[in-house]
């Protein structure tokens, strides 16, 4: 089985964000793998361990942003890793999906996994749009993917924690929310070996498809609120104070 994992680099939330015009000031940002994509990769590796096949990791972005995460993917067990494009402006979901679809389309993967969303877009569209471009069926908010006969048993999560199992046949695109197991740790020495082995491939950014439909016109940091109020006193006094606050707010 041939599995593709679509990965995105997102700004590292450890750094303090600063805004420059309509976007984050990207000069001072560090980039890390989108957490959901990390789960997609983990699920792909688990499937490969169970039923064999190959895993190829794809990531859009410049070397600075994605090289490390692709080397990490190889160190964890991916067979190939591919960098798409370089020195590009941030893309919206349609452009990302188009870039992925154009790059992976000719390979005819059995299964394409990606994170259900990325922390810098929160739209959850990339996997879906890529599926549409590829003409593959798609399922989102996936919390478990297990081999099942000649297909997969996919668990999807609904509102309120309700889950449902689906049987999915190949090919398919899945938007992964969580893998069955927490993403594995890979030793730094192994990442370094992957780096030294130089197996990273790169392709040019394909012609962008639906570019330019969404434009950011302004970006703001959250307003700094007033400091939290510590409620002092024993349970009785504290409860009374809480009631007062809630009454004043018109909640009770």
């Amino acid at each position: 089985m041939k599995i593709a994992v679509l990965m995105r680099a997102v700004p590292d939330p450890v750094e303090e964000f600063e805004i420059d015009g309509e976007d984050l000031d990207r000069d001072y940002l560090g980039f890390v793998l989108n957490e959901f994509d990390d789960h997609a990769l983990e699920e792909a590796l688990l499937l490969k361990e169970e039923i064999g096949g190959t895993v190829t990791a794809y990531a859009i972005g410049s070397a600075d942003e994605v090289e490390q995460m692709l080397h990490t993917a190889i160190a964890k067990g991916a067979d190939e890793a591919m960098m798409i494009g370089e020195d590009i402006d941030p893309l919206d979901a349609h452009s990302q999906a188009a870039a992925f679809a154009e790059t992976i389309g000719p390979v005819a993967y059995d299964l394409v996994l990606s994170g259900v969303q990325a922390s810098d877009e929160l739209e959850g569209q990339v996997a879906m749009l890529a599926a549409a471009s590829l003409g593959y069926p798609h399922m989102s908010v996936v919390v478990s993917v297990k081999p099942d006969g000649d297909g997969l048993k996919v668990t999807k999560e609904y509102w309120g924690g309700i889950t449902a199992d689906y049987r999915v046949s190949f090919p398919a695109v899945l938007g992964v929310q969580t893998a069955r197991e927490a993403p594995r740790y890979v030793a730094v020495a192994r990442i370094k070996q992957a780096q030294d082995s130089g197996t990273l491939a790169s392709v040019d950014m394909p012609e962008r498809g639906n570019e330019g439909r969404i434009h950011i016109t302004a970006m703001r940091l959250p307003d700094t609120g007033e400091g939290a109020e510590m409620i002092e006193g024993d349970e009785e006094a504290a409860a009374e104070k809480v009631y007062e606050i809630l009454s004043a707010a018109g909640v009770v």
Partner: protein
Amino acid sequence: MLASLFPDAAEAGRETFLGFSGWAIAIFYLLAAVAIGVFLWGWYRRIRKYSRGRPTARLSAKRLVRAVGDLASNRTIAKRNRVVGVAHFFVFWGFIVLLIGTTIIAIDEDIVGVLLNKPEWQFWHGTFYIVYSFVLDVFGIGFIVGLITLGMIRRKKPARLDYARVDGVESDRRGYALGDKAFLLILLTIAITGFLLEGFRIAATNYPDFEIVSIGGWFIAWLTTPLGEAGNNTARLITWWIHGAAALAFIAYLPYSKGMHIIDDAADLAFAEQRSAAVLAGVEDPASPGYKSLEDFTWKDLLDLDSCTKCGRCHEVCPARATGSPLSPRDLILDLREHADAKAGINLWYGPGATPRHADAAEVAGVVIAGDTLWACTTCMACMEVCPVGIEHIPTIVQLRRRLVDLGEIEPGLQTAFQSLARGGNSFGKSSKQRARWTKGLDFKLKDARKEPVDYLWFVGDHASFDPRATEVSQAVARLMTEAGVDFGILYDGEKNSGNDVRRAGEEGLFEMLRDQNAEAFETADYQRMFTTDPHSLNTLRGEYPTDEDVLHYTALLDEFVTSGTLEVGGLTGKATYHDPCYLGRYQDEYDAPRRLIAATGLEVVEMGRCRENSFCCGAGGGRIWMDDSGLDERPAENRIREAVALGEDVKFFVVSCPKDMIMYSDAVKTTGNEGSIEVVDIAQLVERAMEVVPVG
């Protein structure tokens, strides 16, 4: 001289096979040959096992000299256990002298007398015989006294000799306990029958006057007089065979029992390196780090396993064991030994219901030794410090952890910490730009050692930079150094976690990365010397960094300023106890500067039972600070606070000199409900308080 004392001295001597038929002598030599054969086969297998270990250079004059002293004095056994030490000293020297005595007879009788057939060269008679008899009797009595003392200590069933496992794995170790008894009893049998034999012989040979120097035998002979000459002679023959059989059985039994410690432990001490935990060996093959299987163990590691006498001292001092984790250093070593023996085809009996020894396990980490057990170690080094025979537990644990890290089988908290460290150089998941944020609480600015030259570069350390409980101490240190007129600076965001604990948690690649990043930052700075607030960083900076950094702990610097009068302190009253951080004390051998500082503030230092080399770990080391402690019965820090509180109500301060201690213990005073009774305070904070009360000028 002796001839004038003893008229019979000219004929002094004895016949080894007095009254034996040729057949009896032949049977004895046949049995002796069998015993020696079994002995040699046992040792051949053991030595073959060690020789399969990876090479490690351990032969040095320094180690040999130290080992000779350790062995001759038995000081490593007497350490913190005087009675056992003295008793073992008696057994040790008794054994050696009796062994030499037996060897002398063998040389005189078998080599000179039989093989060379030169009766005129035989020397075991006359004056030599009289001196020999006296010396052997004296040491023989000491031998028996020592054995009986050790047996009695064993009968009291001290907790350290309880072989029950701590990890809940079903096991049967009755074989171990039986072996201990057998070993003592067989030695005691040899010794006692030796004296009986001597007594019967003296009585049966009409009390030659020179035999009075055989004080033990003479006494027995006096007791057995009523048996008459014939009776004594019969008793002598019977005892001779019991004595001979016991001695031969002992020889044969040696390499299959704890008797092997007689040879293994002398060797293990001679090759032991106490610094092997402080300066860990690197990874030889990055493609396969750590110990995957027994083939990766060095010969010293394998020798360590056989050297364990199960004395239980490591078991007793281990903070992981004391607080209900699945790790006991003793069990770790014994499990590995049983595994190594099984792999070498040496199948000993451990008890009727003993569990399988993983004879066909290809992996050690996670299979022979469970992952949880390996992660439980705080690398406090109490086990290695207390081990009387030079076993190096921690390097082996780290090698096994390296394998687990390579497999990705790591504790979740550790994984988060490693990922943060790889990203930002700190375990707090913070941006490195925030590293020097704590300096904003000062009313002066610290120099950036990368931008301007300084005398001292201060390596602050992770916890001292990020944890609010520890940054207060960092601020106190900054104020004190400024007050003392020290020209110092820090590296701001150029400093990364030193990697000491990362390395001990088995992530060698990450350690190398952090070390290189720091070393690069050191290159860009202009400084003369370095000091650090963190004992863990002190350890790795001193021994594991490429540059031979001259690093001081801040307490050493403060001690210098207080002693010289640069900082004037005094005026505090009351009592305080001091906790030796593992990495400052056991690892770096610094015990006195902190105590001098506390005393200088005016406080009286009251020692806890476990102090200095025997200090009890706070539970944070070796990466444990990042791991989950909720499975423990009690956190090590809580155990320690209870010990301090038990010193009495008048001990008001629990003084620390390590940022991790500040964090662990300020938590533990709360969780043990001792917030009102004892205050956790860093030495720097104490010194600051003691300066405030000193009238200025």
